[in-house]
């Protein structure tokens, strides 16, 4: 009788372990699923956009720090600016830079001279397009601000 009683207790304990394991598995799976919905993987558009924005900011800042950006923009050296951006950016990144007069934003300074790598369709068709703004105060002794808008797309 005592042996039968012990067997029953062991069986009940064994069943509880199985239920506990199943519950634990459910908790882990639920947590992993929950985390996965928030995870930003390197291939996701969100990651790509922020990565490209950082890249764009850094390139414009570096060029400005060296005094090159100011020369290209105010001396209207669009060809040189296109070339430098093409060299600085990775080959699979397309760009389109538009320069506006800060006091008349609908006036495009480089109108008719696109500072671009890649066709126009790349920017209109692509969904995750990174856009970076950069403002410059002037040149020599004149306050003459320019707003640079750099669009970037990974090909």
């Amino acid at each position, binding site marked *: 009788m005592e042996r039968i009683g012990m067997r029953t207790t062991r069986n009940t304990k064994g069943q509880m372990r199985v239920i*506990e394991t199943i*519950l*634990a*598995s459910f*908790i*882990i799976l639920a*947590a*992993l699923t929950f*985390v996965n919905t*928030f*995870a*930003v993987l390197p291939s996701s558009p969100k*990651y790509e956009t*922020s990565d490209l*924005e*950082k890249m764009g*900011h*850094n390139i*414009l*800042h570096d060029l*400005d*720090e060296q005094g090159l950006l*100011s020369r290209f923009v105010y001396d209207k050296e669009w060809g040189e600016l296109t070339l430098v951006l093409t060299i600085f950016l990775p080959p699979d990144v397309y760009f389109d830079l538009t320069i506006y007069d*800060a*006091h008349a*934003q609908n006036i495009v300074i480089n109108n008719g001279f696109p500072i671009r790598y890649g066709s126009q369709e790349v920017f209109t068709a692509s969904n995750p397009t990174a856009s970076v*703004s*950069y*403002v*410059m*105060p*002037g*040149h*020599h*002794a*004149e*306050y003459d*601000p320019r*707003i640079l808008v750099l669009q970037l797309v990974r090909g």
Partner: protein
Amino acid sequence: MMIALMIVSIGAIMYRAGTYYRYEQWEEYITLTEHVKLNTIRLVEISLANYTAPGNNSTSILKDNLNQWQNDLRKAYPGYGIILTYNLTDGTNINYSQGLASHWNENASYSAANANFALNITSVGLEGYRFMATAFLNLTILNVDALSDVITVAVTGEDGMPITDLKKGNFQVDGLDIKNVTSSYHETYILVYTINCDGSIPAPVTVTVWDQRGIIVIAKS
């Protein structure tokens, strides 16, 4: 069960720690802060160049430019909530007026600008990022050799270090043409410029210099 709960809890904490900086995009905001700082300093230099340009001597130029710059920054970065406030230096031993000063027609002359800034970027909770913008150009006439028609000058910048990239076109001697300008080592100023003049040097002589930023200084021996 306890182990499962521990794994989930630690996993959540580690996930939060690993993704915190990615979501905040700190690199982008640091670059933005550096960009505002760089171009604000450049604006102070532009204003000093304007102030020292012939025919211009309005001391309100720096204030006017900074007021416009505040608006243009907001326009260029509409979603960021950029607020740049400034405080123009007045007085001190350089005798600034609205952040600008020029002390010319002396043996050692200078042009200077100074302002303090505080930057807020409300979208990221950045408040009170302070920096100072200084622009300075000093011209000292060290020697005038009337026999060989040579003037030796020292040109220094903000930190007292010599300005090294000046050419013949950056100098002017009143009433005389310049044949050439050479630079050489000097034990006090590190680098000095020798201006070879075409003709006899009058006494006193007035020398003008402008650096690559367009800031002008006029010194008289």
